[in-house]
């Protein structure tokens, strides 16, 4: 019933499902180089100030973490709604979602800074912070019941435990299906996707509060978790799009991922560009309308100096431009074009995180060293993550080769 000639389901050992050697050989260099670049970036940032270095590190960490979490969400939601179209690209998301485990290791520097840094990164850990800023002690003591080293550490462990458990379980089931092709495995993954998504949302929202929002300890926005989540899901769709495009260029999945799949990824990119803007605006408008100093200061600080310009850049280039750019189906069905937008949006996603995190490290962008530090950190961290993704991918397949719905996904066609 399709206008296309539906590609035949290839056997599981077909080279189309194998990570091309040109990519797998990059794994080691990327990991090692990435760590080196990350360290240089952190050192450059520390030359501005210790707080700046760790903030640049945290920004890069959040960039990678949001991609991994968005991928985890992608996998869970596909199972939750029993989506058929996405089977050919689901493995790519699965490869990125297991990155929450190495990212747990990469979180250790942040945790160590908290435990031994006395407020180097998180102001609330500075015992003199409340006094220096004339904070009302009644509120501050209540805040400290949540924001303290011990409970923060326990929570961080809890978040990573939830994410890792979900990621590993879903990854293992999916790989298991590569061997058996059992429909029962799909059923089990679908069965658990509901509770899994609830656990995921709770952990992600609170992690956003803990790791990003608490940088400004007196500020609060109940929407903040959703804000991070919106950027995260957008970033994940962009990553899947870029990865599948790269794999196709390198020779894998050539027949499997078609314009139809890019079209769907493009729709989600388009949708989440708008969802991100919707959430960002909703958060802004409530604060703007309420006009309460304890809420407005966060926005106000981000309207001073260069931060104000970055804010405008976000409105124009994280919303307006890609919104119009990805609106047309002709763009979405054109793999190179939609991949261009995906790369562009990942860059804007970093700018978004930068705008959230870096103003807390000081009123300036840290001059030349600051910019170099931020760039090196994110490039290094991303390189490490890609290196590890390639390593995992090399040991498995780049698509869910025996998923019972693979045929459906291959034959998928937009109306």
């Amino acid at each position, binding site marked *: 019933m399709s206008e296309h000639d539906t590609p035949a389901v290839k056997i599981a050992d077909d080279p189309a499902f194998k990570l091309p050697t040109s990519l797998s050989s990059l794994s080691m260099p990327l990991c090692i180089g990435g760590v080196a670049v990350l360290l240089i970036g952190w050192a450059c940032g520390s030359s501005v100030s210790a707080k700046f270095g760790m903030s640049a590190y945290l920004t890069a960490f959040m960039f990678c973490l949001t991609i991994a979490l968005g991928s985890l969400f992608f996998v869970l939601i596909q199972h939750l709604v029993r989506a058929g179209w996405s089977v050919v690209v689901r493995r790519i998301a699965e490869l990125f979602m297991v990155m929450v485990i190495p990212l747990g290791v990469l979180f250790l520097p942040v945790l160590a800074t908290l435990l031994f840094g006395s407020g180097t990164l998180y102001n609330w850990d500075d015992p003199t912070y409340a006094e220096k800023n004339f904070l009302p002690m009644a509120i501050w003591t209540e805040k400290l019941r949540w924001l303290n080293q011990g409970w923060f550490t326990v929570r961080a462990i809890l978040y990573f435990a939830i994410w890792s458990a979900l990621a590993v379980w879903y990854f293992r089931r999916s790989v298991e299906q590569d061997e058996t092709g059992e429909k029962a495995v799909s059923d089990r993954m679908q069965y658990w996707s509901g509770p899994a998504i609830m656990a995921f949302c709770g952990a992600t929202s609170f992690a956003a509060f803990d790791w990003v929002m608490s940088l400004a300890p007196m500020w609060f926005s109940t929407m903040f978790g959703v804000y991070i989540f919106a950027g995260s899901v957008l970033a994940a769709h962009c990553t899947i799009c870029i990865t599948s495009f790269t794999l196709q260029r390198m020779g894998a999945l050539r027949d499997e991922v078609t314009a139809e799949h890019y079209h769907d990824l493009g729709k989600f990119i388009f949708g989440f560009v708008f969802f991100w803007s919707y959430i960002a*605006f909703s958060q*802004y*408008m409530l604060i703007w*309308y309420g*006009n309460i100093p304890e809420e407005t200061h966060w926005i106000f600080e981000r309207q001073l100096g260069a931060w104000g310009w970055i804010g405008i850049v976000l409105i124009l280039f994280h919303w307006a431009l890609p919104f119009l750019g990805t609106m*047309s*189906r002709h763009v979405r069905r054109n793999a190179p074009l939609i991949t261009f937008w995906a790369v562009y949006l990942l860059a804007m996603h970093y700018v978004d995180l930068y705008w959230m995190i870096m103003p807390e490290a000081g009123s300036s962008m840290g001059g030349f060293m600051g910019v170099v530090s931020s760039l090196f950190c994110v490039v290094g961290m991303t390189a490490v993550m890609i290196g590890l993704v390639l390593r995992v991918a090399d040991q498995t397949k780049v698509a869910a080769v025996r998923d019972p719905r693979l045929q459906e996904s291959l034959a998928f066609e937009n*109306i």
Partner: protein
Amino acid sequence: MSENNEKKVHGIVAEYTSVDSLLNACRRVRDAGYKKTDAFAPFAVHGIDKALGIKPTVLPWIVFGCGAVGAVVGLAMQIWMNSIDYPYIISGKPMISLPAFIPVAYELTILFAAFGAFFGMWALNGLPRFSNPIFTDPRFDRVTDDRFFLYIDSKDEQFDEAGIRQLFGDTGTDYIQTVVDDDSSSKVPKGFFVAWAVVIGLSVIPVLVVLKMRLTNSNLPRFHVFFDMDFSPSKDAQQTTTLFADGRAMRPDVAGTVARGDMLIDMDFMTGIDMEALTQVDARRAERLVRSFAEPSPQQAAEQPPVAAEDEKVAPEDDPAATDAAATPAAEAAENNDSQGEGSDEAETAKPAAPVAEPSVMDTTPWLTENPLELNKELLERGQTYFGIYCSVCHGLNGGGNGLVNRRAQKILATKWIPPSKLNQSTLAQDVYPDGKMFNTISNGIRKMPGYAAQITTRDRWAIVAYVRALQQSQNASIDEVPAAEQEAILKQQAEVKKQLEEQAAAEAAQAAAKPTEKE
């Protein structure tokens, strides 16, 4: 055409039993070059557009255009309504505050886009259309169930019945039918009109009832649909209530209430005193002044006089100024100014006056030497207006001290009357009597003159100060200050007046000389 010779042919339709056979037939028809075709299926068939060679629809552009129009309409509507047609401050936000407008603009974008999609689809499909000739074929009913149809319209350039029948025949269909005019009756069923008549008839009844109520008289009391809207339980002005101990339904302003737009936290502006300098000279007094403005006690008037009257010239022995108490406005008012007889609890009130030798607090206070407002025509005109309303009755319209009240007092030989100052006298010149001091005098009064702080807003008092300066200048001006163009006219006028005065004087002198005895 053989069997339906007399009827107009609209096209030819073929029936298929499966999606695949339909799609195959579509491709054949497309490849044969037919353009005016249509396919019918019980459900949406993926890829049928391409199989039938249907061009991509322009509907997305219509939707996009409508959405853009919706956004513009939403923004323009709100900007016009809220900031042009009926300017109204909401939550202290600017008149055109984009964040507040975005939700409505967003919703209108969606609404217009949805309308664009819905009505655009109708327009593109030529809807509404109540009947289609293809419905004449009874087998076509199964298109909503389990059959697929392909149709070629007779308006197609290549339309050729025999050729199409052959083409359809090749695609594996066993049912090919020519679609002809629907000759069934197009009369609207009678029941339809009856139903409409009934509905219209019923809908007239409420209107008639309302009209009858409106146009006829009745002895019955008015019928209150919403009782609590006709008789609001909320209190009106001047009513009593049992809710509050004082029985007043109208609540007095909370202490410290500031009228909208009157949030003047500039102490210099409010007192006419250079507070920075005062802090250096007398920190305690400065603090008390600030306090008196920040937390007015409930009994006091809206604005409390920071420094009350002085009596420099007329009653110098009354001047208590050098004491600390001088800074306590109410205390001083009690001592000095019978027109402002408000008492004070402060113990300092009881202190006797300090030795006369010490300089008056009025002289030691670091008054503002310049008007804090920007001097322009508008301000001076405002000052002129308020001077005319409040000051001129005593001081005269030219500030010469001979207003109507003064003239009356002179006429009735009022014993207790203290003549108002001539505002152009040298002791009130800017260099000896700073603007701040004059502002203070207007605010809090002097001698017989009451304070006007309660009647005239701070800004307007400063405007009066500015106008008084202008008056002073006008009374002591030299001819050089007049623009050259008008100098001549003034000189001429002056000369005439002088001449008149001289003539008058001469006449009087002549009269006096003529009748010297009468005078004595």
